[in-house]
C-alpha cells in the first residue's frame, strides 16, 4: 500500500554465512576500518613522494634515471624506508633497544621510551580531541580548543604554583582549575551562539588569539613570572600539583590514565545520559529538538562549557604532566591537533582516543625522524592533514582503491551546514 521498501529479509540469512567469508567480503568494501587504514597508507605514500622530491641528493640520482634507474630507486627506497622506520622506532619500539634490554646491554627505560613518548604526546590530545568531538556531536564546530587549552594551562598552572596544598589534593585542585578555566572560555562562545546566533567558528577563533595574548601578558606579571628570570616564563608548579609519572627519562604520566577514564566518561555521556540524548538531537536536527521541548540554546551553552572544560583539562595535563611551568608556547598546538584527532576519530569518544594515540605516535616518531634523517616535523603535519582529508572524503579513497560499497557503514562525516 505504500512505496516503502519491503522489510529486508536477507539480513538474518547473511548472519548464517561463515564469519570468515563475511570478513573477507567486508574487508575490501568501504567500511570504516578499511577506509581508515587505506587513508593512512595513501598519506604515507604521498609523504614518501614529498620526501624524495625534496631531497637534493636523491633527486640527483634521478637525473640519470634512464641510464641507471636502480640508483634512483635504491636511493629513494633507502631514504623512505629509513624515514618510516624511524617513525616506527620512535613511536612504538626500537628492536635494537629491546634486544639490548633482553641481553642485558640496555635498560628497560630505553626500550620503553618510544611508547612512553607516544603516550605523553597523546594524553593532552585525547582531551582536546574529545572536546572537539563532543561539540561536533552537538552540531558545534569548536575551533576554540586551542584557546580553551591555553586558559586551562593558565588556571591549572597558576593553581599549581600559587596555592600550597598537600599532595594529591593540590593535584585535584589544579586539574579542577584547568577544567573550570577551559569551561569558562567555552562558555563565552556558547552563550553568544545561544543568545545572538554568533557563529562559533568565528568567535572561537578570535578567542584563541585572545587567550594566547592573555597568556603572554600574564606570565610577565609579578607573582606569576619566575622572579629569577627576566623572560616570559612563570614559576614552576609545586611538586604536589604534578601528575605522577614514571621515573625519568620516561615522561609518560598519569595523564594518559586520566585520558582513558575521561574517554569512558564522555562515551557514557554521549550515549547513555539525558544530556547526551539532547546534544545528539540538537546536533543532527535542532528544530526537531526544539519542537520536542529541548532548549537548543541551553544545550549549546552546556555543550560548549563541557567541551571547553575538556580542552582545559587537556591544557592542565600539559602543564601538570610535562611542562611544569607556563611559557607562551606552553600549550603547543594541542588545540588544533585535537581538531584533527576528532575528525580522524570520527567524533566518537573511543575513536578519538585511538586517533590521539596515533597522532602521539606520529609526533614521537617524527621527532626521531627529524633527529636521524633530518626530515622536518612538518612532514608529520602533512601526513596528519592528508589522513584527515582522506578520512573525510571516503568517496575519494573508494574511487582510488575501487572499493565496493559497504553494506552497512554510512560513510562521510557530512556535517555540512555552513554558517
Amino acid at each position: 500500500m505504500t512505496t516503502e521498501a519491503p522489510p529486508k529479509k536477507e539480513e538474518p540469512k547473511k548472519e548464517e554465512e561463515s564469519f570468515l567469508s563475511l570478513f573477507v567480503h567486508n574487508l575490501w568494501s568501504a567500511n570504516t576500518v578499511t577506509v581508515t587504514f587505506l587513508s593512512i597508507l595513501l598519506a604515507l605514500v604521498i609523504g614518501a613522494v614529498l620526501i624524495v622530491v625534496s631531497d637534493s641528493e636523491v633527486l640527483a640520482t634521478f637525473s640519470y634515471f634512464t641510464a641507471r634507474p636502480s640508483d634512483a630507486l635504491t636511493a629513494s627506497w633507502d631514504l623512505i624506508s629509513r624515514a618510516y622506520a624511524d617513525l616506527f622506532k620512535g613511536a612504538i619500539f626500537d628492536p635494537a633497544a629491546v634486544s639490548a634490554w633482553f641481553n642485558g646491554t640496555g635498560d628497560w627505560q630505553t626500550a620503553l621510551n618510544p611508547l612512553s613518548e607516544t603516550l605523553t604526546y597523546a594524553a593532552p590530545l585525547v582531551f582536546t580531541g574529545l572536546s572537539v568531538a563532543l561539540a561536533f556531536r552537538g552540531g558545534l564546530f569548536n575551533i576554540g580548543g586551542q584557546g580553551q587549552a591555553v586558559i586551562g594551562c593558565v588556571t591549572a598552572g597558576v593553581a599549581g604554583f600559587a596555592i600550597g596544598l598537600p599532595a594529591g589534593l593540590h593535584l585535584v585542585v589544579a586539574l579542577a582549575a584547568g577544567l573550570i578555566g577551559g569551561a569558562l572560555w567555552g562558555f563565552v562562545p556558547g552563550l553568544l551562539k545561544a543568545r545572538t546566533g554568533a557563529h562559533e567558528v568565528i568567535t572561537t577563533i578570535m578567542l584563541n588569539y585572545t587567550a594566547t595574548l592573555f597568556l603572554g601578558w600574564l606570565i610577565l606579571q609579578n607573582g606569576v613570572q619566575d622572579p629569577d628570570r627576566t623572560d616570559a616564563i612563570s614559576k614552576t608548579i609545586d611538586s604536589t600539583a604534578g601528575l605522577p609519572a614514571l621515573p625519568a627519562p620516561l615522561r609518560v604520566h598519569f595523564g594518559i590514565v586520566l585520558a582513558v577514564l575521561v574517554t569512558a566518561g564522555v562515551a557514557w555521556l554521549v550515549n547513555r545520559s539525558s544530556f547526551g540524548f539532547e546534544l545528539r538531537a540538537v546536533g543532527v536536527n535542532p528544530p526537531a529538538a526544539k519542537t520536542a521541548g529541548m532548549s537548543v540554546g541551553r544545550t549549546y551553552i552546556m555543550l560548549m562549557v563541557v567541551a571547553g572544560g575538556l580542552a582545559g583539562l587537556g591544557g592542565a595535563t600539559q602543564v601538570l604532566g610535562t611542562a611544569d611551568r607556563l611559557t607562551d608556547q606552553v600549550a603547543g598546538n594541542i588545540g588544533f591537533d585535537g581538531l584533527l584527532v576528532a575528525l580522524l576519530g570520527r567524533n566518537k569518544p573511543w575513536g578519538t582516543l585511538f586517533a590521539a594515540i596515533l597522532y602521539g605516535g606520529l609526533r614521537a616518531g617524527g621527532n626521531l625522524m627529524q633527529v636521524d634523517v633530518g626530515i622536518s616535523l612538518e612532514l608529520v603535519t602533512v601526513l596528519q592533514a592528508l589522513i584527515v582529508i582522506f578520512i573525510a572524503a571516503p568517496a575519494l579513497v573508494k574511487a582510488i582503491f575501487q572499493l565496493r560499497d559497504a553494506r552497512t557503514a554510512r560513510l562521510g562525516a557530512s556535517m555540512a551546514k555552513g554558517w
Partner: protein
Amino acid sequence: MVTDTGGIDDKSFNASAWAGLQAAKTQASGVDPKYVASTAEADYEPNLRGFVTQKCNFILSVGGLMGDATKNVAAQNSSQQFGIVDSAIEGATNVYPMQFATQEAAFLAGYLAAGYSKSGKVATFGGRKIPPVTIFMDGFADGVAQYNKAKGKDVKILGWDKAAQNGSFAEDFASPAKGKALASTFVAQGADVIMPVAGGTGLGAAEVAKGSSGKVSIIWVDQDGCKAAAQDCDVFLTTVVKNITDAVEKAVVAGATGQPLTATPGYLGTLENNGVSLAPYNQFDSKVDQTLKDEVEKLKADIVAGTIKVESPSAPA
C-alpha cells in the same frame, strides 16, 4: 643541535649556532651536524634525548630557555658532552657553556648611534623579552646615556627603558611585517637610528630605512648585516656582532679532535676576545665622523681595560 622554538631560521642565535656547526663540518672531517627544531617547550627534553640515543658526540642546546632541560638530560647522561649557548648550568661538568657579554658591544653601538643621530632620537626594539635580547638593549641604552653624559646632550632612546626593563617587542622573531610596523612608528616619532634585536623581524626595520632615502639607518645584531642580509647593506650603520658561530665552531672542532671542553669557566665572549664586537661600518665608513669613530675605539679600549663597566641584569654572571 636542538633549537628552541624560534627554529633554525630565526636569523638569530639558532641560525648562528647552526652556521657554526656547518663551519665545523668543513674544519673537521668527522663532524656530521644534525639539528632538530623544537615546536614547544615540552619538546626540549625528548629532542635532546633523541640525540643521546643517537649517540651524538656533542649535543648543543641553543638558548637560555633550554637550560633546565639540558641540565636534566646532561645529568642523566654524564658520559656525553653537551654544550649550551646563552646559558650556563651550574654543577654540570659535561655541559660546555657559551655565553656572551653582548652588552659591551651594544654599549659601543649605543654611543655610536647617539653620536650619529641627527634628530637626537634613537630607537631599539626586541623580538621577545628574553635575556639574550634585552642584553643588547641594555647595552645600547647605556651607550646612549654615556654619550649624553660625555657630551651634555639629550639624545632620547625609544623602545627600551633600562631602569624599568620595559620596552617594545614584536613578540615574533620572524615577522618582518611587525618589524616594519614598529620601525615606521619609531621613525614617525623622529628616530633615525634603529637597532632591531629581533632576528627576521628586524628585516622589516631595514625595509623602512631603505624607504627613507638615507634618513634612517639600522644597527643590525648578531652577525654582520652586510653578510647576513646583504641586500640591505646600504642601510646598516654597523652590527653588534655576537659571534656564536665562531664559538660553536671552535667548541665542536675541539670536541671532534678530542680536546677537552671544560664546563668552568666555559666560554665567555667579550670585546676583549672578540666574542662580541662592533662590525665594520661598511658603506657608512665615509659617513661616520672620524672623531666619533675614535671615541668608539677609545671606549672599547676602556671596556677591555675594565675602566668602564657595562652592566645588564641579563648579562652572564
